[in-house]
Structure formats: C-alpha cells, structure tokens
C-alpha cells in the first residue's frame, strides 16, 4: 500500500476526504473557522475539472449545491455557526426533496457571531432541530485528522445511500489542529455512488417511489426523465399534494429511512470500557482531552473508560445504554451546556448517575478540567 502522508489541518483532511469521495462541486461563503475548506476547494477543484463557487452568502451556497447534486454531482458546502443557521431552511428542502449533500459545520462559539476563533460544540442540537418540521437527520463528528477523513467519506456514503443531507459537525480545535494524515489509496475506504434509476427514457419514472429497501433510484436532472421537485409535500411523481395519507406516508418515510437504519450509521470508538466504573462519553476535540485523561489515570491505577461518539444523530441510544450498563457513573464531556448529556440521560438506566464535565468559555476543555470535575462528582473536592 503506497499511502500518501500529509501534515495538515483537520479542515484540509476533511477537504481531501471529500475529493476522495468523488466530490466535484462545492459552493461556499467564507467564515472562520471553516474557510480553509473552501480555499482548498478553490484551488483543487478546477484542476480536476470540478466546480467551485464562492456564492453571495451561505443560503445561496447550500441552494447551489442542492441544484448541482440533483444533476448527479457529489456536492458539499462548509461553514461555521452563523452560516449554518442561515442554511437551515434549505437543509429542510434537501431533506424533503431527498437530495444528497454534505454540509460541514466547523463549530465556533455562539449564539450569534459569538467566538469566531474559539472552540465550541454548541451546534449539536441545531444540527438535529434547526430546521422546521418533523424529520430525521444524520450528523457525524470526529476528533483526529484520520477520523475526520473517514467520517467525511462516511458522510458522502450516507448522503448517497439514504438520499439525504448529512451534517459533519467539526469544531475549531480539530479543524485547525495540524497533524499527520494518511490519505488511503483509492478503494481502501469504499465509496458509495448514487443509485440511478433503471427506468428507461419514455417510461413513466416515479422519482419519489421508494424501493423495498427504502432507497430511491434517482435520475439526473437535465437527463432523460423530466420530473418535478418541490419542497411541498408531494406524491411519487413529485407533484404537490395535501392528501393526508400521502403527507403521513412521506413524513414516515423521511423519518424511517434514517431511524430504521440507525445501526448501520452508528460509528464510535471505545477505550478501556470493560472494567471502568466511570465511563466518559465525549466527541470531537473534547474526546481528545478525555482520552488523554483516561490514559493518564490508568497509569495511576484509576479505571476510567471512554466512549467516543462519532455518530451524534441518529443518537445511538442502544449503544450508550449497553456501554454504560456496568458504570457507576457516566461523565459526558462536551463544550456546551449539555446537549449530548440530555441524550445520554435518555439512554441509560440510571440517568441520575450521568454528570456533565463541560467548558463553555471558548477554551478547549483540558484533561485537568475533566479530572477536577470528576473529583467533585465523586465527592473528593478539587
């Protein structure tokens, strides 16, 4: 295996992975701390015949990639907090119209313009609940360059498989951290291509008629099948309808096609969980600090374990319940007011044993911070 070794920022690892996945269309609007992704695309895409657009704002960016995806391209946009807020309406459109796309949110502190160059994990719930109406969503995250690479490829694969937008929630620290990245050879990580319809020209094609496995074969827009795409509730031809049965069926489809396959999407890492009375649960940059602490305390005979989540939505309740079964206490380590904490409490048998170790001041949570909080939780004082 002739792997190419790089020393790059997490944002660049994400961009490299997007190209690896077959991305050939990117539109964006600059915002810290995500801009390196679009700068990379501006440089690389024209060289391989792809298209890069710097649009007038984030709304235009996500709309443009949705349009391009419909014509058969693999597409992505990247932004941070405020830009992600602007994208919510079009995110809902991509969900409703079942158009694959990847949206990277390199999180920064908020609300509002908040902390442009500081770390935060405040957009976990925005990713899930930001757009209006009922739907399911896929949101992934990662803590190292290598994982950012893998999860980005996963994001494209899930987007194509489930015909849905997929959100990649990075954070300022992992986005800007420079470290080693091994770019795998082509084919080392499988990439999923779009499922194209086999219906031939002239035969009635139903763009919104799911197969038995829930997948929807697509026809490239501008190709041989002419059909209608709308954000309104629509029937199997894509025509607007208010028929309660069809409306019900479509909502169920949008939710079930993701929630029923949640197990296929759940990605995680675990460290020393087998004999750990105290289980840490973390993700993104916070998980790096958590792992450091776990390894450090192990050397001193303290049995901490770590469950690092890489799929945040659909939330892996069953996995968390299973991994925390024997824990005497569970400490969720995150850089917000407890967004994943709430899900963990829903998942475990004894929610009163779930505690939060957080930091919300724009600084990276350190191993010492976590250790101090654990001491307080365990009644030992700092």
């Amino acid at each position, binding site marked *: 295996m002739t792997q190419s070794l790089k020393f790059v920022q997490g944002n660049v690892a994400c961009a490299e992975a997007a190209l690896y996945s077959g991305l050939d269309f990117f539109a964006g609007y600059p915002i810290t701390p995500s801009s390196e992704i679009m700068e990379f695309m501006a440089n690389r895409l024209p060289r391989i015949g792809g298209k890069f657009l710097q649009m007038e704002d984030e709304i235009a960016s996500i709309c443009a990639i949705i349009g391009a995806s419909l014509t058969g391209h693999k597409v992505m946009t990247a932004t941070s907090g405020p830009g992600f807020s602007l994208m919510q309406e079009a995110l809902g459109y991509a969900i409703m119209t079942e158009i694959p796309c990847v949206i990277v949110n390199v999180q920064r502190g908020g609300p509002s313009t908040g902390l442009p160059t500081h770390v935060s994990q405040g957009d976990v719930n925005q990713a899930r609940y930001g757009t209006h109406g009922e739907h399911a969503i896929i949101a992934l995250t990662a803590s190292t360059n290598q994982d950012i690479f893998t999860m980005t490829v996963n994001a494209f694969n899930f987007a194509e498989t489930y015909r849905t937008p997929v959100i990649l929630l990075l954070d300022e620290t992992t986005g800007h951290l420079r470290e080693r990245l091994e770019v795998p050879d082509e084919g080392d990580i499988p990439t999923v291509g779009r499922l194209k319809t086999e219906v031939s020209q002239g035969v009635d094609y139903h763009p919104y008629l799911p197969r038995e496995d829930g997948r929807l074969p697509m026809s490239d827009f501008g190709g041989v099948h002419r059909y*209608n795409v709308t954000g309104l509730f629509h029937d199997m031809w894509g025509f607007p309808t208010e028929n309660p049965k069809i409306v019900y069926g479509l909502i169920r489809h949008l939710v079930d096609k993701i929630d029923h396959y949640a197990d296929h999407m759940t990605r995680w890492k675990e460290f020393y969980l087998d004999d750990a009375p105290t289980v840490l649960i973390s993700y993104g940059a916070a998980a790096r600090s958590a792992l450091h602490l776990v390894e450090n305390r192990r050397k001193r005979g303290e049995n901490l374990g770590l469950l690092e989540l890489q799929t945040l939505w659909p939330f892996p309740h069953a996995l968390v319940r299973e991994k925390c079964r024997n824990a005497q206490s569970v400490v969720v380590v995150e850089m917000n007011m407890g967004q994943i904490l709430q899900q963990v409490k829903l998942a475990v048998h004894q929610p009163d044993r779930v505690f939060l170790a957080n930091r919300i001041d724009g600084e990276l949570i350190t191993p010492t911070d976590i250790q101090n909080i654990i001491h307080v939780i365990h009644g030992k004082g700092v």
Partner: protein
Amino acid sequence: MAVRDYLRERFFPHMWCPGCGHGIVLNALLRAVEKLGIDKSDIVMVSGIGCSARISGYVDFHTMHTLHGRALAFATGIKMSRPELTVLVPMGDGDALAIGGNHFLHAARRNINMTAIIMNNRIYGMTGGQFSPLTGCGMFGTTAPYGNVDHDFDLVELSKAAGATFVARSTAYHVKELSGFIEKAISHKGFSVVEVMSQCPTNFGRRNKLGTAVNMLETYKKQTAALDSKAAADSPDKIRRGIFAQTERPEYTSEYEKMIHMASGKS
C-alpha cells in the same frame, strides 16, 4: 410541437385565480420556447415560492420548485453543473427583489447564462396582498392600509446596474411582444431579465380599485408605451416597454470553463 405538449395536464387545474396574469405569462413563455424549438428535455425551470412560482409545476420540463427568493441560487448550481441546459427562472416581484434581491444582483453581476422572468404584479399574491418592493408609494396592500410609504425599484435600471446583459419589459396585455422578448432573452448568452407587468386582480386590483382583470389589462395598454414609439415621445411619464439592454460581456460558465482549462493544464 403544439403548445399543449409542453404542459403537464396531470397537474391541472392550475391554482391561479380567474383573470390572473400569470397564466398569460405561461402562454407567452411556451410560445417562445416553441418558436425556438428547444427540446423539452433541454430545459430546466427553477422557481421560488409565490403564485408566480407555481408556473414550474405546469410545464413538462425538468422543474424545480424551491424556496422563497432562492430560485436563482439553485439555478446557479444547476447551470454550473450542466451549462448546456437552458435555464429559465420565473419569479414574483417579492420573490426576486425582496427576499431574493441579493441573489438577483449577484446572478446579474456574474452574467450567468439564464433567463429571469419577473412576474410583476406589484403585490405579494400568494400570502394575500401585502405590499412588495414594486408596489409603489401611495398604493394599498394589507400591510399598507394607509397607503404605502415605501418606494419601489426601477427593475430595468436595477438589472442593468447589477450587470444583466439583456433587459426587457412588457406586460400581460402585450402578449406577442412579451413572447418575442422572452424568445430573445432565452437566445441571449448571458443573464437576461424580462419584467412582465402581470395583473393580480384578487389582491392588488381589488385593494387599489383597479377594476376587473380586463380593466387592469386595458390600463397596461394605456399606461405604457413602446420605446422609441410616438406615444413614448408624446407622453414622457408613460412606463416604457421594450428591450433596454442587449450587450455582450463574458458569460460566467464559459469563463469558468476557460479557467478549468488553465488550471488543469489543458490548452
């Protein structure tokens, strides 16, 4: 091909009110497409939200009914990825110039090859008659019960200033002229804008006591004058109809292709 063959009859009856100008625009548009003989499968129509935006459902092209104000942004993604397709973007005046104003300016600035058809009924029709950026001072709407204090845009001047290379204006009364302008706009290489004054008897007409749809159409006849016509020379305050700009400027998708050639080392 007969005009009927461009319609999706499965989607009828349409949702427009009796007397609405939007149906006339649809008719003029289809006749232009028929004249140009473009294959149905080579046309993509992208619309936003509003009564006007519903036009996309009725035509047998590749059609995308998107978000309020965002049609041009979606259309940009489509045109960039498939430059060979003809991209038509019908919009309401609120759709194009209020919520979508920024996208409109930037599509014009890029001079990307697509045709924006702005169905100007001077009101938000679909949401029940609130004033729009083209309602005009002193006119009435549900949100301007004492007369509108907002000034309107001059869409022609705005489009030219933003960089559109083809700009025309006509009305729902002047159907043949309108169809001709749309035909020229589609043939033009660059960002083309056709403003159509299109009556909304239900919301604009009623609230401003403009009579029936027929009365409103007659008003278009009376209030407007073709550029360079005697009527125009005689009455300077009449609204001008005609082609206001038809210029050559590098088109975005072609310039982009050149950049790809340069960057990828192809000659």
